[in-house]
């Protein structure tokens, strides 16, 4: 198993390449989800504001 991770001495390189790719490809959707939440929260806030005002 450790031989597999070692990869003939190139393990560090190979795994760090994989890790950067994985990191970026997880980071991107994560940012998108966060952005979506904040946009939705914004929309809800606008809606609340409108409702409050129509009651005023």
């Amino acid at each position: 198993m450790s031989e597999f991770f070692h990869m003939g001495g190139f393990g560090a390189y190979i795994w760090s390449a994989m890790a950067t790719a994985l990191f970026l490809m997880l980071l991107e959707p994560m940012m998108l989800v966060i952005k979506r939440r904040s946009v939705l929260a914004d929309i809800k806030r606008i809606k609340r504001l409108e409702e409050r005002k129509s009651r005023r």
Partner: protein
Amino acid sequence: MYPLNMKINWFKYSAPMNFYPLAGKLIPIFWLLAIALIGLGLYWGFFKTADILNDQKQYYRIIYVHVASAWMAMWLYAVMVAWAMIGLIFNTRLSFMMASATAVTGTVMTVIALVTGAIWGKTSWGTWWDWDPKLTTFLILLFIYIGYIALQSAIDDTRRSDKASALLALVGLAIVPVIYYAVNCPDPNECASLHQESSLKRVESNILIGMLVTTLGFWMYSFATILMRARNIILERERNTSWVSKLEEVNR
């Protein structure tokens, strides 16, 4: 005067209102495909090709991610330009949104290609970076992506930012091939044969399969993230419309 009903049929999904739910349904599918294909490709690459690679060439395994992202980086630029062009010609808001959604994923792919390429370079040439034509072109591609995004985010007015960045993408389309030529062939005296042998030809077919499957997975990943981003953009821009305020996720 205008073929109105034709227009509605043709452009049905070009209305953000219709596109939004459709994209919502497609996203999970693309995610599943992406995970499956990337998983399969890497599994193939790591476990089914060990015998082909002798010990010195283990680092070849980077190729699956490297080539897939490099290809996507180039493809997505073309896709982005295509959306921008459609937007400019038909003046459909959705096309512009797709163009800007594509740009960011394209940038991410370029960065992955550059980083994995640099790591590869360290293993095979012993240096992280070299001013080789392919690498240089990619660096410039990154700069062009960044320019596109920077221009877009510098303009507040969405109508202006859509059109301005689309025009920039078009100008880029005209100049990028020239840049590619210039970087590949800085000395026109000795540049009769531009078509150097494609490095792909030297790749074992077994590795090629893994590469292609991973690339397909990256395509699916790009679809998924682009659609997600497009949905965010739609929500942001249409937040005051009635259809958005009737959405289920808003009323939860």
